[in-house]
């Protein structure tokens, strides 16, 4: 992946709205075939960055190029390179599933002859063959998302951009969607994903950029981030909400690092079970305890001092 051609390159990218800085001088590169994720809480600047890439928002300063082109100079061309799946579905409710795919291709200027066979392929991909003549309004949330993704693929884009692709979907619908996205990745489509879900980032992304308040906090593969910013395991203990804060100083001496959350304390160590055993020996008996592997949530907590979904 590292020797693949660079598709997107941003240098000192800034976006300000009046006094508010949404994106504060970020640099990044996305390579061909990569699945690149922007991870961060709401308001971190992920969607703003996506919109600048998609040529639907102008930047305040800095440089960005997509396939070597500046989106502010070559807007329509950039948009032809991209498939966009926005945060909120914007399907055409007056049209059927099939018509939505057809007309979207027409917006790019593609011919009927080209679009017709493409529709069959995409309906199959989105598992919506039986729904082709149904009006979009009648679809479930998961189906709408799959249709939005299929629609973005009509123009055979080199880069597919997904803004919070599974927000608001039930677990089953999320897994179907992940499976579809994974197939695209296997076909070599470059994916750009924003998410505030850790599991999603771990499932789909080769490389992640952790963002908070418009800045990049860290950038690496999911495993690399966990390795660099967290321990191998985490011990979660609860002593009851009033005692957590009292016991915290004692726990702090026993491991690399702790995080005191309102309802529980996270203790970072390479061997969680051993740490739990040690607690017992010191006469500290938590109400509940759990040993788990470190996750991106822990990385985020370490980097920003906050949980992802406030």
């Amino acid at each position, binding site marked *: 992946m590292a020797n693949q051609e660079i598709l997107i390159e941003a240098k000192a990218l800034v976006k300000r709205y009046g006094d508010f800085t949404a994106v504060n001088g970020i640099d990044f590169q996305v390579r061909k075939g990569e699945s690149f994720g922007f991870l961060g809480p709401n308001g971190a600047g992920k969607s703003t960055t996506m919109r600048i890439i998609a040529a639907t928002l102008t930047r305040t300063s800095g440089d960005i190029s997509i396939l070597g082109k500046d989106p502010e100079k070559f*807007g329509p061309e950039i948009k032809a*390179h991209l498939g966009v799946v926005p945060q909120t579905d914007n399907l055409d409710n007056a049209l059927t599933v099939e018509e939505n795919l057809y007309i979207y291709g027409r917006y*790019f200027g593609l011919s009927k002859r080209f679009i017709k066979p493409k529709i069959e392929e995409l309906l199959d991909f989105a598992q919506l063959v039986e729904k082709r003549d149904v009006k979009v309004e009648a679809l479930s949330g998961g189906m709408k998302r799959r249709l939005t993704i299929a629609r973005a693929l009509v123009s055979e884009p080199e880069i597919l951009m997904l803004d919070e692709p599974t927000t608001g979907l039930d677990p089953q619908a999320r897994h179907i969607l992940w499976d579809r996205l994974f197939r695209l990745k296997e076909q070599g489509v470059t994916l750009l994903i924003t998410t505030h879900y850790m599991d999603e980032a771990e499932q789909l992304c080769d490389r992640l950029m952790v963002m908070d308040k418009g800045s990049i906090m860290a950038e690496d593969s999911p495993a690399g981030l966990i390795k660099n910013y967290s321990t191998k395991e985490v011990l979660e203990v609860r002593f009851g909400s009033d005692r957590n804060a009292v016991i915290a100083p004692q726990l702090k001496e026993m491991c690399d690092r702790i995080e005191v959350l309102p309802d529980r304390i996270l203790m970072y160590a390479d061997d969680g079970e051993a740490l739990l055993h040690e607690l017992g020996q010191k006469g500290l008996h938590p109400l509940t305890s759990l040993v788990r592997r470190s996750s991106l949530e822990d990385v985020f907590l370490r980097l920003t001092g906050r949980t992802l979904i406030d």
Partner: protein
Amino acid sequence: MILDNAVSIAQSRRGRFAEGSYSGRSHVLLERSLMAFRNSAWLAVLSGFFEPVLYLLSFGYGLGHLIGKIPLQNGHVVSYAMYIAPGLLATSAMNGAIYDSTWNVFWKLKFDRIYQSMLQTSLGSVDVALGEISWALLRGFAYAVGFMCVVVPAGLITNWWAIMAIPSAVLIAFGFASVGMAITSCFTTFQQMDMINIAMLPMFLFSGSFYPLTVYPGYLQGILKALPLWQAISLVRDFTLGMVSWGILWHVLYFTVMICFGVTLTAKRLTKLFLR
């Protein structure tokens, strides 16, 4: 030449006029409107045909019976139904265009986010503005033809100039739709949208559809003549009643200005809303 690659299609527009905001594909919006029309909107469109016909029956024949003949400026005398028919045609062209370009556009803008989806493709804001307005224009054309099919057999049209009422209705619809969409793109709430209705009703009642403006004092006549509906009614009436003069060109100019203003403002607003 048929290109079947979105990028080459976009590249072929390089260096053309307004390449960032116009791709020369406003007709695909008409294609969309036709599909939506087939699916459900046809009922609403059909009601726009009956509106002027019902007014004509009620006022033209009902009330007209009591009113009798109306003398024109050129010395001719016409029946009341003949007098109001052009006013009703102009009004229905206006209503169809306004309904399409205000409430329908507001819905697509705010709730369906259709323009957002269009502008994330290689379409430009001028394509979207022109495409949506052209649909209103097509509706104006259809209403005018439909209305003619009623008034000609009814004997309310007696001269050949009346055929010009059809392109006039298209021009009127174009003007109202452009300005209607421009205003709608500036609005954000339902309350603001209601203001459009509040402005439309008095304009309809007092702009001379049912009686000549000469009943008003001079200053009021001046104000009403500056309003687009009076301009529209005069344009159509001059043709249907055969009162053709070079003065008609002023009405044409009025609508041309409306169209230029409306299309430009709409494209600017769409750019501001979706492509900041």
